[in-house]
């Protein structure tokens, strides 16, 4: 037969997964996050570009009895920031459980994450209401709604990803592939929270600083 003797590197004993930099999906996720971060960067640039066109930002309301009270309301927004920061705790728990192979821990932590994700989206709905202009009122309304909406879309995406992994962790084997996936979704989740902090500062405090 065609058997030949050759020098070899035998990798049959090597594992199928490693966490973090070893894993292609970890890099793929960072590629996605680089794209999304760029996107938010340009959104921020757009916000400040449009800001230049205004004497007052946001513009005064023409119909309200208090024409200068057009600032976006802080309550829901700040509550949401606190909520998002707290949501990192169950995600860290899920992340560590996945690394350690603690299935029960991951199951509970992921369900908590889902609860946080849904609560944050509910608060986001209130944030839209707290903006005194609709998207079609003026350029200020357009960019604020766009920013809130774009971030909400990411919030929705990461919550749905967490949902998929939750179902897997409860219904299927707690295998290495999906343990790695949990650690990768955790990165996405942290990113969704962290990217919101400058956006929150921009949307709610740039108007207040004048």
């Amino acid at each position: 037969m065609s058997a030949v003797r050759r020098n070899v590197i035998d990798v049959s004993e090597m594992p199928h997964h490693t966490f973090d930099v070893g894993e292609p999906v970890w890099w793929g996720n960072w590629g996605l996050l680089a794209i999304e971060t760029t996107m938010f960067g340009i959104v921020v640039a757009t916000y400040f570009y449009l800001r230049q066109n205004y004497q007052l930002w946001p513009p005064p309301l023409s119909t309200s009895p208090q024409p200068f009270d057009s600032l976006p309301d802080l309550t829901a927004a700040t509550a949401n920031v606190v909520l998002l920061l707290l949501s990192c705790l169950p995600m860290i728990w899920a992340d560590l459980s996945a690394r350690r192979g603690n299935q029960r821990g991951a199951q509970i932590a992921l369900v908590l994450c889902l609860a946080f994700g849904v609560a944050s989206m509910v608060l986001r709905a209130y944030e839209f209401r707290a903006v005194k202009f609709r998207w079609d009122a003026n350029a200020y309304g357009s960019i604020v709604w766009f920013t809130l909406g774009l971030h909400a879309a990411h919030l929705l995406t990461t919550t749905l990803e967490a949902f998929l992994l939750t179902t897997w962790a409860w219904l299927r084997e707690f295998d290495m592939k999906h343990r790695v996936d949990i650690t990768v979704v955790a990165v996405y989740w942290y990113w969704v929270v962290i990217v919101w902090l400058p956006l929150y500062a921009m949307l709610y405090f740039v108007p207040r600083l004048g």
Partner: protein
Amino acid sequence: MAEQTQEQRKELETALARNPELAKQRVQTGVRELDEAADRRELARTWAKGRGLYAWLTNTEHKVIATRYIVTSFIFFLLGGIEAAVMRLQLARPESRVVGPDLYNQIFTVHGTTMMFLFAVPIMEGMALYLVPLMIGTRNVAFPRMNAYGYFTFLFGGLFLYGGFLLNVGPDTGWFSYVPLAGPAYSPGKRVDIWAQMITFTEIAALVGAVEIIVTVFKQRAVGMSLNRIPLFVWAQTITAFMIIFAMPAVMLASSFLASDRLIDTHFFNPAEGGDALLYQHVFWFFGHPEVYIIFIPALGFVSSIVVAFARRKIFGYTPLVLSLIATAFLGFGLWVHHMFATPLPQLGQSFFTGASMMIAIPSGIQIFCWLATLWGGKIRLKTPLLFVIGFIVIFVLGGLTGVMLASVPLDLQVHDTYFVVAHFHYVLIGGAVFPLFGAFYYWLPKMTGRMLSERAGRWNFWLMFIGFNLVFFPMHQLGLKGMTRRIYTYLPETGWGSLNLVASAGALIMTAGVAVFILNFLWARRRGEVAGDNPWHAEGLEWSTASPPADYNFVYLPTVQGRYALWEAQPDAPVVVGLKTDCREVLVTSVLDAEPGHIYQLPGPSIWPLMLAIATAVPFSFGIFTPKAFAVGAVLAFAAFFGWFWSNPDSENAEMRRTVAPEPPRTSAPADAARPPRPVEEGA
């Protein structure tokens, strides 16, 4: 007992996953007896394409997907070319009535949009997706299903644009669709909506391809291919992929803002409500200028490969070449304002962007001199690919010279929106991308099809294109200086532009003949071309160590690399990688810097979910021009598709496929276990 070993296995898995050093110690080296024929048979079964429509729709193999990208975008190139020919026919003489102004507007818009978004970017990515895995010695890209998804979204985007064009709702505001012309006030109807949505979703395909290339290059290189040994082509494609990641989001935002201004009455670009028309230009060109380099840098990769193969020597200045690619990529992001010199910008800003635009000549110059030095010291074989490279150098240098001229604000203001600019960017883009691309076709098609293209027809092809191109575009410099503005559908005889336009149109005929020769050459070669063999050019890259065309699995044993020029510097006793299962699609993941073995990576097999997700993406972007509700429907569909994607186990799909192809039970190795002895020598003999 079985429970306990299960438990132990899990603990071992966890320990290895958390400690890469431990994993690395499990590599074994030595001499083995390998039954290559048996391994080939089994790999062929595992990676089989399958037959029928369903197999076609579910295929996720990189060469298949890449071929689809290349063929589809080449068809778009021909369509864009036909549009160009119609424009040349119309402009051949004054007061011509071949097409009316409205159709002419649509034609030049669809021509530009096609060439930029449906031809140039996807065909370069297609070449990358085909060649990169072969050049770095792996079996498929990192995320095969995402790859298939990218192709389908690109295809749907192209069909959407041309569907509109055929129904007389082709966009008609130029390939960059400036507001306010493209805004709701001046462009009612659906034409610009089609443009805006098409942009957003074809860019998804470009971004997917970019992530694909980066991760594949970072994580799946052959053992020994450290960063400083990556072929220049792969460098070029990786750098391009990074540019795509940082540039494409801008155009997606620009087109999303535009679409939302048009569809849901936002005011991003409406000055009456605090918006700003110039904002559009900034966001668009922040993508648009890097776009030029996204098209051009892959072509530099082609040129480097071809120059090395036909000068038959190592490249002169590998490190400066890589560094100038990176420098070009960085500078490319600092140039966008030079497209906007005719707008009211601060003087300081204009000077800055003039400086940056001129600076780009430095890395470009370094590259040209490195290639010339390589050719200078080489034993040159003047085959068709090299002819195209020389054509590229000549044309691109001319285009670069007008580029330096246009970087100066006073000259730019004078010739802004004239045929001088049209001449400039066709010199840069056709010279910089299309000529190297045709060279690449002549160089790599033998690998892809297994047949050589005719050398004689190749020379005809080159000279017809070269002469035709210069006849079309060189007179346009003069026409621009004489004041002929771009995008006019006709002109009066008194302008005196008639004769130069006639020359340009005659050139278009010759250029068309050149492309026709290529197509005939290709069709002839498919049937009657000389059989190429593995390495017809005696070139150095790993792709030439595979069969022509490569087997579905690319390599029987993943190769290892001992130098920058994989085949030229290969040692006869170089080891190969064994121990990957042959009954499922496995590759080896290596470290980013030094390409040391990291772990085994199991790739998914065929899957229908990429197509489903692409359809879910197409719904909001096409029906979204009629009602925003389509976006809600699309989100639900997309989630359903993700759900199917997530729950379908890639390995089970593989196994299912094997069952239908071959009923015999697969040969599997036992789960990883520390105590397991190395594979005995007899196995496989």
